[in-house]
Structures are given as C-alpha cells and as structure tokens.
C-alpha cells in the first residue's frame, strides 16, 4: 500500500463567473514537509487555500486530508481535523487582548478556559511573543507582532497542517529573517506540516524543500527549488509570456 499523503487534492476546480480560478489542481503534501506554493498574482493560490479550508466549496474534484474526503465539509469541521491557516492581510481580533485571541484558538482542543489559556501561553512563548504584548489589545501592536499573533492563534488549534499565506508581505528584512526562523522552528519542533504561499523568493527558496508553481489556476511545475527556478515555463509565467 502506498504511503498516505497528509493532504491530497484531485482535479480541484473553482470558478468565479466565467473564470476558472483553480483549474484542475492535483497536488499532494507529505507529513512533515514544508512546501512552497508560488506563482504570479491571480494564479489561484489563495483560492486553493480557501477550497482546502472550506471557505469555498470547489465545483469539481476532491480534497483528502489524512485519507478522509473533506471536499464538502464546513470549515469548522475541517479545522477540527487539523488544518489551520493565516492570511496575507492580518485578521486580528482587534478588541480582544492578544492572549484572549490566542486562547480562542486553543479552545478548539481544550474546552476549559484555564487549560486553553495555558496552551495559549505556551504557544505564545514558543513563538517568542513577549509577556507584555499578551495583555495588549489587538489594535495596539505592530505588524510583525500581528503576524505572530495570527500564527499563534492558528497554532493554538494544534494543526497538523498549517497553510501560510504571504506571511512575509510588509516585513522588514530583519523581521523577515526572524519569520523564516520561526517557520523552521514550527516545522521542526512541533512537527507541523507547512504549505507556504509566498511572493518573496528568498523566503520560499530558503525554507521549502519542495516548490509547487501555479499559473492561471493550473499547476505548471513542481520540484526542488533550484529545479523549479530554472524551469522555462515558470520563468515565462513570471515574465507574463504565455508558454507555447
């Protein structure tokens, strides 16, 4: 028997009006991997994320998580199975304190507030969020801190698979380095599988062991970072010239 992939999509199609935003995508993610998902604007990466997390229901195709079909499940059930995500634009709980926001995530697996709060603290510490930040409200912290809180909130749900959408956007070079380290740490120390959508090539190339390239809703290449970056189809896609 084949080794079961953690996440597998088969011919997933999602349309908006006449546009096929995701056009027959089949990918698979193994346990423990860090996969980079790249492609020009509008390639369908975020839409694919939305299909996986149940925000959108794909019109065609199937999505499996740990061998179980999740294509038509509602988001909350999918998250419970062990998928979490973050967004390119942070979505903080502005009027809640940081620790409360993370606790909200932890409540998924810890029904008691005290336990959840304990868990939240643990995750915050793991991500290096300083104690004084935890009491601040969501609208009182910096962008980098926001990104970490979003990550912490997602991690607090104890996911097996974490989908990270352009976490580097808007960060300064030093912050970017910290973020790269943090992602590595999440993968190594917690064993969380990561799928990272990214525009910043430095980030993708330095953390991903495997890269999947999407263009106009389709997967056009996948492989090791160095292979992919030399692929002529990929280069053409990024330059905006249609491959013949």
């Amino acid at each position: 028997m084949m080794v079961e992939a953690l996440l597998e999509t088969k011919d997933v199609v999602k349309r908006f009006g006449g546009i096929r935003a995701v056009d027959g995508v089949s990918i698979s993610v193994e346990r423990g991997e860090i996969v980079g998902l790249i492609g020009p604007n509008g390639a369908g990466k975020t839409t694919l994320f939305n299909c996986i997390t149940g925000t959108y229901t794909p019109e065609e195709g199937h999505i499996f998580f740990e061998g179980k079909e999740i294509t038509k499940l509602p988001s909350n059930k999918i998250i419970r199975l062990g998928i979490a995500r973050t967004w390119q634009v942070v979505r903080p709980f502005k009027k809640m304190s940081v620790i409360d926001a993370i606790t909200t995530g932890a409540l998924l697996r810890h029904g008691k507030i005290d336990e959840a709060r304990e868990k939240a603290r643990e995750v915050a510490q793991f991500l290096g969020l300083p104690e004084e930040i935890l009491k601040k409200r969501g609208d009182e912290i910096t962008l980098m801190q926001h990104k970490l809180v979003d990550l912490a909130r997602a991690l607090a749900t104890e996911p097996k698979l974490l989908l990270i959408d352009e976490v580097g956007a808007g960060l300064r070079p030093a912050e970017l380095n910290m973020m790269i380290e943090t992602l590595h740490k999440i993968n190594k120390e917690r064993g969380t599988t990561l799928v990272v959508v990214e525009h910043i090539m430095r980030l993708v190339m330095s953390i991903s062991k495997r890269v999947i390239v999407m263009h106009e809703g389709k997967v056009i290449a996948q492989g090791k970072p160095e292979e992919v970056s030399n692929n002529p189809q990929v280069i053409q896609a990024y330059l905006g010239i249609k491959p013949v």
Partner: protein
Amino acid sequence: MRASITRGPILEILILIVILAIIPLALMGNAYYELLAATVVLFSSMVVAWNIIGGYAGQLDLGAYAYMGVGGIVTAELWMKAGIPPLLGIFVGGAVSALIAILIGIPTFRFGIKEVWYALLTAALVVIFNNISRLLMGPFDYYLPPTTGFVYLKFNSYVIVYAIAASFLIIAFLVNFFVERSKMGYYFKAIREDELAAEMVGIDTRRYKLYALLLYSFLLGVMGYIYIVIAASYSYRIFDSSASLSIAIMGIIGGLGSVEGGIISSMVLRSLGEYFRSTFGSSLPGLDLLLYGAVLILIGIFQPEGISSLINKLLKRKG
C-alpha cells in the same frame, strides 16, 4: 461554564445588587420615583440582554421588541385563556420567543446574512410582527385582570415590580457574566471581531450565533410580561420599531460588549429622557430625543467605543 471566576466580578455583582437594593430605600416611598425606577431598570435589563447578541456576538439586532412582545403576549394570553399563572407563563413566553427567534435565525445565519443586512432583517421583523399581530388580535387593547399576587407577578406596590425588574437585570447581568467567561463568550467575541478568522479557528459560527440569539430572545421574552404589567394593557403596538432601535442605541452608546456601559447609558439616558418629558414636555416637545440624537453623533464621531472606554480612560489616567 466551567470557567474559574475571579474575585473582581463577584464584587461587581454584589455592588450591583446592593445599589439596586438601596434605590427603593432612597426613594422614600414616593410612588412616582418607584415606578420610574422600575421602568428604568426594566429598560436596562433589556439593554443588558441585547449586549449578548449585539455586544458580544456583534450581530446588530434591531428586533428587541419583537421578542419582548411575543414573550409578553404569550404570557398574558396563557393567563387569560388557559389560567396559567404568569410566574410559570413568563418562562413559556421566553421559550416561545426563543423558538421563533431560532426558526428565523436558522435560515438567516445559514444564508450568511450579517452586518447591515442582519440589522435590516431584524428591523423588518418588528414590522412584520406588528402587522401580523394586528391581523390576529385586531386593533384592540387587551387588559390584564385586576387580580394581584405573587403567582401573577402583579402587585399594587411598585417596589415589588421594581424588585422583579431588578432581578431581571441581575439575571441578565449574570448571564452576560457567565457568557463572557465561558468558551461561548470567547467564540462570540471572535465572531464579532472577524467571522472568517473565527471560522478558521474551528468555530461553528452559525451555531454560536444561534446560541447568542437564543439567550437574548429568551431573556427578552421573559421580560415582556413585566413590560405589559407596567404599560397596563397590550396590543399589536407593543411591536415598536423605534423602541427596538433605542435598545440597540443604548448598547452602542454604552460601548459594545460592556455590560456596565450599557447599564449606565440606559439608566442615565432613560431617566434623563423622563426628566425632560416631565419638565419640558409641554414647552419643548421632543427635546429628549433631540439630545439622544446629538449624543449619538458625538459618541459616534469622538468616542466610537462608547462611554465604557471613556470611563476606562478616565480611570487609567487617575490610577
């Protein structure tokens, strides 16, 4: 609700109870002020109940009097038609009100109606209830029997009416208190802050919004009968759009999610409104409402988080 409770809030509740207990003593047996206190406290408890759906769960519900009216009318009719004493009837009234709320809430949340659309839907609900009850009950005023007594929750003494209204306020306050410290409270607030992000930490947002609606409509349904006792008669006009709006407005002025703010704003503004009515009613009609309007605009522009955040700021500055 297995949350651990810290000492601070208990103090808060005790203070609230003590203040509410002192009020009638302070009124020195003046029936007018007793009645006023009962009216104001009942209004406050409606605002506190609203806080669950509006303040915590962030759903701008403008249908308070729809739920309150249903509960009140059901309780009154059960007494008059079936002889069921209101002491039991108010819970049936609350349950019927909650049931109707849920029946409407399921499709509403199922189809993802939120923000202004939810506000419009609930505002329309009050008009629909008004029109339909007009068809069912006719235009007539209905009077409660003159009987008084504990099981009828009807008394000649305003102090007791006040005491009942005050216990509603305490109960509504406690429900808020437990909600805030429970998983439900965290989930409500997450939904209020960002529904999509809430989904992504595994919250069944539809179900939790229904929970909020359920608690809110049940509490209002239970309060409806006492409203009728104070108003002395009831008719389809109990379904009042502008009164429903004023409940939400008090919640907004108080500060979303702040029970204390809601209590303060509703008590102060409702009493002030009554003061203006009785003082300037004949010379400056509508002055109280005009002032509400001005307060709303000023708060919206300069203090969008309501008076509770203003109070917090002042406390911080001092402390």
